[in-house]
Structure formats: C-alpha cells, structure tokens
C-alpha cells in the first residue's frame, strides 16, 4: 500500500513533466522528423541524378538548388499555419485558383500549342499547380462538415467542384495535370467513405466511355501517345522515339547500372526530356535495378508515413486532406514511373521531387508542409490514452 502511494507520488511530477514535454522541439517548429528525413534523402538523391542528367550544367543545378530552398521554406512556412484556417478559407482559395485558371485561358502564355502559364511582372507560374492543393482542401473542408459517408447530394456537389477546374485545365490543354487535379479531389471523396457501389459504378461508366472518349474528346496527339504505348516501333523516329529510347536506357542499365555519369542514352542525347519527365530513365541507366529499387523504397516509405499521419490526424478535415495529399503523391510517382517504362501512355507528369522544375516542386512541398502541420497539430484532447 505504502508502496503504491509512494508510486503515486513518484509518478505525479513525472506525469506532469511528461505532459509538458509532449510538445517537443519538432512539434514547436511543426516538423515531422521522419517525413522530413525521408524528404531530405529523396531530394538529395534527386539532385545527384539531376546533376548527371544535366551534364554538369551548374547553372541549371544552381537554379534547382534555389528552388529546393524556396520549396523547403514554403513547406516550413505552411506547416506553421493552423489547419483550421485552411478549412475556413478553403472556398476562397478554391475560387481564387479557379479565377486564375479562367485567366489562363485568355491571357495564358506557353509553348508547343498549350497555354499553361500566367506571367505577372516577369514571374511565371502555373495556376493549375495551385489548384492541385486548393482542390483537396476545398473538398475536404466541404465534406468534413457533412455527416459521412457522403450523401448523393454532397457527392454531386463535390463532383462539380472537381469537374470545373478539370475541364479548364483540359482546355489548356494539359491532360496530365488535369488528371492529377481531378484525382486529388476524387481521393477526398474516396476517403470520406464514398460507397463502394458508387466506385464500382464509376469504374463501369469509365470503361464504357473509353470508346466515345477516344473518338470525340482526345486530341490527335493524345491518341497517338496511347497508340504509341502499344506499338512504339510503328513510328520509331516520331511518336515512338521517346518511349523506345527511355526503355532502352532503362533496360541497358541492367542490375547495377552503367555507373554515375556514364549513362550513354542520356549523355549522348538519345533520351529526350532526360532532366524533366524522363529522369528516372537516367537513374535506371546509371544505377540499374538497384537504384530503381532504392528510389521506389524511399517513395513508399514517404507514402506510408503520410498514411500514418492521416490515420492519426485529429479531425475529419485533416485526415481527409492528409490522405488525399499522400495518395495524390503516390499517383504522381506511379504515373511517371509507369509511363517512362512504357507501362502507361506518356502524359506530362514529372517525377515528384526529382525532376527539374520549380513550380511542381513548390506545390509538392507545400503539400508536405500541410502534412507536417497535420502531424504536429497540438492535441486538443490530451488525455486520450
């Protein structure tokens, strides 16, 4: 008995100490250490590959480093904002992004017949990137207010929220981004508990609409990309060139690769877009199957950490958002890694956090910033043991 009392007395200060210590340094600065460490590993590895892909173009590399600094800064900054604010301002954020997308249609600039950029005072950015975050935030905020699983009315509204920007982005045209934006919204619906029968129905409709889509919606170049997937040899020097060369680069890497900076496909310019969309082919050529394995492992670990954060999130909005950000990130990876290896048609999706390019990097890191925020949000109910 005395023993127990003693125990109680002994434990009390400890317990209160423990309560205070719960807010660790990581929590104070709103950084999830595991995720942060994995991201550092991935971006570091990415820089290595990019160095090889850019053939020691130091200017290019320096620019990318600056982007990394900006992106990490943005991640850090956004992680500090209370998640409640995003939920509150979600509609405004969404509408703002939508307006910019409309502006792009009229005043957008770009290359190769696509208008994707807005240019403001020499600074160019892609409103569709902004939508990648605005969309899941808006839908997560909208659905988390409702009782879940969502009712038909709310599903319908959510679909409208998804459809409008998607159509605007398709118009640019930018099929890759539009798919990602739409998916990021639909994933929220999925996590909100969209009944399986709806999902099944949606898939059925999707399958049924392949034929009309093919004939009436897709552009010629998009059709040719799909056709190329099945038979790249048909147009060796044209549409098939990219995929043939990337498969050659990957395949010739073998198990352990040709060695860093020794990739012939990329260094002799056979591999197109070697520092942007097709950068994994450079990795596969120089580091072989082992390199690919390591990279995919890093991605899977990051995604698992994201899913873990989503599981432990504190309210409906946060977990929907965390789930969507994480799964969207995986879709990025899957689509890119799949298309470069000839598993999926070529759509313009960069390899996240590795491909050259600032805008997508910043968007992604902002997403991770949100994840960090969710992960380190102070517990509202502390005695939930």
């Amino acid at each position, binding site marked *: 008995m005395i023993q127990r009392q003693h125990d109680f007395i002994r434990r009390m200060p400890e317990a209160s100490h423990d309560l205070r210590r719960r807010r660790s340094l990581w929590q104070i600065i709103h950084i999830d250490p595991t995720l942060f460490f994995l991201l550092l590993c991935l971006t570091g590895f990415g820089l290595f590959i990019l160095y090889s892909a850019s053939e020691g173009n130091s200017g290019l590399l320096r620019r990318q480093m600056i982007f990394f600094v900006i992106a990490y800064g943005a991640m850090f900054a956004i992680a500090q904002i209370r998640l409640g604010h995003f939920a509150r301002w979600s509609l405004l954020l969404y509408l703002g992004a939508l307006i910019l997308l409309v502006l792009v249609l009229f005043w957008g600039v770009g290359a190769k017949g696509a208008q994707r950029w807005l240019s403001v005072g020499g600074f160019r950015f892609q409103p569709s990137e902004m939508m990648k975050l605005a969309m899941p935030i808006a839908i997560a905020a909208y659905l988390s207010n409702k009782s879940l699983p969502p009712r038909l009315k709310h599903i319908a509204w959510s679909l409208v929220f998804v459809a409008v920007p998607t159509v605007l982005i398709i118009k640019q045209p930018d099929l890759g981004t539009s798919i990602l934006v739409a998916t990021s919204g639909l994933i929220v619906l999925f996590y909100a508990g969209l009944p399986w029968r709806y999902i099944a129905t949606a898939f059925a409709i999707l399958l049924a609409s392949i034929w009309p889509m093919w004939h009436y919606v897709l552009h010629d170049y998009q059709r040719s990309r799909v056709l190329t997937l099945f038979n790249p040899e048909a147009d060796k020097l044209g549409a098939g060139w990219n995929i043939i060369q990337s*498969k*050659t680069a*990957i395949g010739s890497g073998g198990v352990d690769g040709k060695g860093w900076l020794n990739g012939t496909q990329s260094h002799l310019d056979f591999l197109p877009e070697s520092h942007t969309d097709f950068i994994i082919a450079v990795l*596969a050529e120089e580091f072989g*199957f082992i390199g690919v394995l390591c990279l*995919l492992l890093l991605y899977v670990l990051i995604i698992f950490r994201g*899913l873990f954060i989503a599981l432990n999130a504190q309210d409906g909005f946060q977990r929907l958002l965390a789930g969507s950000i994480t799964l969207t990130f995986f879709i990025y990876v899957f689509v890119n890694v799949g298309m470069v*290896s000839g598993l999926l048609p070529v759509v313009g999706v960069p390899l996240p956090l590795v491909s050259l390019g600032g805008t997508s990097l910043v968007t992604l890191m902002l997403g991770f910033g949100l994840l960090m925020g969710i992960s380190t949000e102070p517990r509202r109910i502390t005695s939930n043991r």
Partner: protein
Amino acid sequence: MQEPQQFKNHLLETRTFSARILVTGALVVALAVLLLARYYSLQVVNYENYATQSDNNRILVQTVSPQRGLIFDSKGKLLADNRPSYILSIVPENAPNIQETLKLLQNLLTISDDDIEDFYTSLKGNRRPYQPVPLSYRLTEEEIARIAVNEYRLAGVEVEARLVRDYPEGYLFAHSVGYVGKINDREWGKFTEEQVKQYQGMHTIGKIGVEKYYEEMLFGKVGYRHVEINARMRVLRTLEQQNPVAGKNLQLHLDSELQKTAFAAMGNRRGAVVAIDVETGGILAIASTPSYDPNLFVTGISYKDYGALRDSPYIPLFDRSIQGRYPPASTIKPMMGLAGLSEQVISQSYKIFDPGYYQLENDERLYRDWKRTGHGIVNVHKAIVQSSDTFFYDLAFRMGIDRIHRFGTNFGLGQYTGVDMPNERRGLWPSREWKRQVRRLPWFPGDTLNVGIGQGDALATPLQLASMVSTIASRGAHFKPQMVKSIDDKAMPPVIINQVEADDRHWDFIFNSMRAVVHAPNGTARRIGKDAPYLMAGKTGTAQVVGIKQNETYDSEALQERHRDHGLFVGFAPYDKPKIAVAVIVENGESGSGSAAPVARKMFDAHLLGRYLSPATPPVVSRDSQPASFVLQQHLSEKLKLAQLGVEPRGR
C-alpha cells in the same frame, strides 16, 4: 433515411477512414510491386536486348573509303586520278526550311534544277536521320568562300572534301579506261552480301571499261571506324579503327600519245582504231569515235547531258572498238589465202580467170567482183594485192565452210578475244552448225562464197580484226589482247591463246602479198605506202552497208552518206620485224584505201617514228556541240542490221 442522419457518427467515420487507409496502403504496395516487376523485366530479364540496342544507338560503324587505284598509260602518264573535291551537302534535320535554304544556295552558287531534283530523290531514299544529303559537287574556292560568308543563314549546310575520280585525258579514254559513276539501284540489287558491306558508304563504282573490269582491284578494301555518336549524329570519339586497303594501281599498255593520234587521224569520222603490240598482244591504242567526256559521269550526269549523248545520231556512248560488229570484208583475204595454201587447196601458183563474176554450177546467180570487168588471170598474190573477189569465191568454194570456219576460229574470228574489258562482243564467224541452230536453215554453197570474202553473215569487231592481223604479223602467235600491262608494278605476262601452224614459206608468201598491197604500184593501198621510211603490210576492206540488186552498179555519189560503204584496213609494221598491228574502221568511209588506210599509216608513223598528232578539235559529242561533219542521220544499230541483211556481197 434523409434528415435524421445529420449527426456525425465519428466512430463510423473513423472506422471507414481507417479501413480505406489500409486499402490504400495495400494498393500502394501492390502497385509499387507492379512497377518493380516492370523494371525487373526491362533491366534484368531483357537486359541483353536493351544493352545491344543502346550500343547500336551510340556506336556507328563508319566505312572508311579506300583510295581507288590509279591508272597509268605505258609511259607513266596518269589516266585516272583521285582529286579532292568539295561537296556541298545538307543535313535536313538541321535545316529549318529546306526550300528556303535551297533557294538561297541557288542565288549563291550555280545549282541546276537537275541538282535539286537529284537532291530530293536522295532525300526520299533510304537514309539515317542526320545523314547529309549531297547537293553539289566540285565547288570552287570562290563558292566555298561565298558559303562561308553566308554560313549564318545556311543552317544544316555542310561542305566536305572528298576524293573524286578525275580523268585528265578526258575523251581520249572514255570507252577504254571507262569511268566510275554513282552506284544505282540495279547494281545494289546485284551485289552479294560481302559487296554490300564493301560498298556501304561508298559513292561510286566502275561503270565501263577498265574501271569496271578491274573494279575489285582498283577498289581495294574498305576500312571501318567504330565511332561514338550522339542523337544528332555528331561524332564524339573513335572507339576502334580498321584501316582501309588502298586499291591497286594499274599500268596499261595504252600509249596516250598514240591514242591521241588515233583520234586526230580519224578526225570527224565515225569508227574505231585498234592498235596491238604484236609481241605481247598488249593494246597500244583503242579508240571509238566520236567520244565524250567521261568526267561528266563521275558525280552523276545531268539529264540534259545524258540525253544529248544518248540521242545523238553519232551514238558516242557506243564502244565501236569492242562492241561494233562490222562485216570484215576483204580484210580476211590474207587469212583466207593462208588457209588455202596451208590446207593445200591451192598452191602459190594456182591461177584462175576472173571475168568479173563467179558462178556456181547449176546456179544462175552471178557472184560479182567489185571490179565489173574482172581482174583477168589472178593467182593468190594478185588476188590479195588487188583484192579480187572472184578468186576468193573460188577458193572458198573449194575449201568448204567447215575448213574456213576452223581456220578463221584459230585467228579468233567469232570468238571472244578475252580482252580485259567488259561487254565485249564476239562477232560472228558462221558455220553449218550455227546456221542450223540459229537460222534453222541448211548451209548453202552460196553462203560459203559470201563468207569467203568476209561478207554475208560474217561479222567482226575492230578488236577482233586487230587481233587477227596481229596473229598474222607474229606468224601465228595468237595472243589474248590485253589492256593492263602491270598491276602494282607486277607485270602481267602475255597470254597465248593458240599458235596457228603454217609453213614458213606460206607465211613469207602472205607477208609479201600484204606488203605489196601497200607498196606495189597496183596495190589497193599504194597511196599510203608512198615515201614511207619503213615497210609495212596490210589489207584494205570495203564493207557494204546497203544491198545492191543484181545488175545495179554502186554509185557513191548518188547514195546518201549513211548508205555508203564502211572503209576498213588492217595492217602491221615494220614489215621485217612487226611491232604494231592496226585495225581501222571508218563508218561510211566509202573505201578502205581512201578512208581507213591513211589512219593506219598515221598510227604507224606515230608509233615507229614518234610522229604523234593531236586533234584540232576534240571529236566529242556533248550537249552543246554536235560535230558538224558527222552528217549521219541514222543509228548504227539499224545500219548494222542493214549490213547483216545486205545479201549481195562485194569486197575490195
């Protein structure tokens, strides 16, 4: 089901969400495994394939052209040379607008529409990306400078130095040395696999003449260079090199001074001159007139130029010396006389009376002599000197076609001479068998008579006639005529085909008769024998082009030029120790003594006395000039047909 469920069921929501996160986790793992399987398939299972493909991408096997062997004449004069030439080509992948570029280039240089057409043809052909397409050859220094100045406007335009075949002697050896030209599709089709390997990346191949016959030797062996290239076909470094083997140099028996003399002597007449070294069978000169400039063909002849050559009534492209088949006419009479003597059909003193015609028993037809009044009493000597047809009708009749055929064959008549030139024709030395097989007719005695004076079905090329007379000159040593004297300083030994056996006194007798043709006051070629510082021997011939009907006389004045007889002459010199044997044919030259014999004299003078001649104007057919004095209107092939059908023979 509607309104009451407004309250959030947190527990249910959390459970649903957690379940879906788990589903997601499983999906992520499954898809990641799918991706890994894909990369495993590419990188581990199919590694060999892709590694090979990657090497094929970056490693280009370039052929390194061997230097083509040079061709010299017997005195060391260069007949076929390789000269650096600047070639303008375009890399279409680097030229933003090909039409614009071409237009600009046309302003800067002289580029014909033909060149442009050729360019587009090659552009559409089988071609690796970034492989340059040639547009213009033989750029001048000034043109190169103009391109350099305008380089910034000419993206994709390249100037490259390449060795191009050059024939410094031009028309002199167009038919004999021949020329190289672009490899055409038909030639590609006929190549063996090994040849395809050899000629990949090569531009030209021997087309005619020695250039074609000795193609393999002149060509050498290509070398290979394995280079690493990037996607724009830019060569970055050489990985491996196997050096080419240069082609062998050829020295010919030809003497370009003598060849020039042949052209000068022929003037603007059509025909052929062949001179053979009696002691070896080496061809000292071989000319077919008119000629043309072989350099036109080397980098691809323009349609206009080619059309002019092809359609010219003087058919310059036709090599009369080894492909033209003419009735040998009286030029075979010395050979026939020798045959009669050595077969003991006649004796040296055998005589007949020549009334101006010959008649077979039970045949009303008159086989006429060229001299209507006849030569009176003739023996074999007189028959050769004055070219009596009647005597040789009689001789032929007595000898019979079988013996005539056998004897003539020993002199190479009707046989390929085996000369080292392509596309030689072998003429025709008729026999019973030939007539049965080809004409499906029996042999008639009249046929024998016609053959006996070198008419009827008998046909021979100028080279065959030269070889025949050379065989006589060497007293029976029938050499294979040869163009090449040595290959890379290794002498080609003379080749004897057969030795014609005959008594020395018969040889002496025939020699003497042939000398009299030139040097006796009544010889048919006495005009060329005048004031010659050496003795020569020969025989004239006049080959009929148009058939003369019975009872009709030949009136050269009335006949159109193209229907006039061909003039022939065969001979050798010096008489005592023959060195050079010559055969000359002058198409529509009317008579052998008047047209062909003087050419032979000039050839003898040149070779024996060094009195070489040069043509005043090159006897060449080109786009811009059709020599005025070649008044012929008709194709030779038609004429030859006429000659072959010309039933009524007459010889002189």
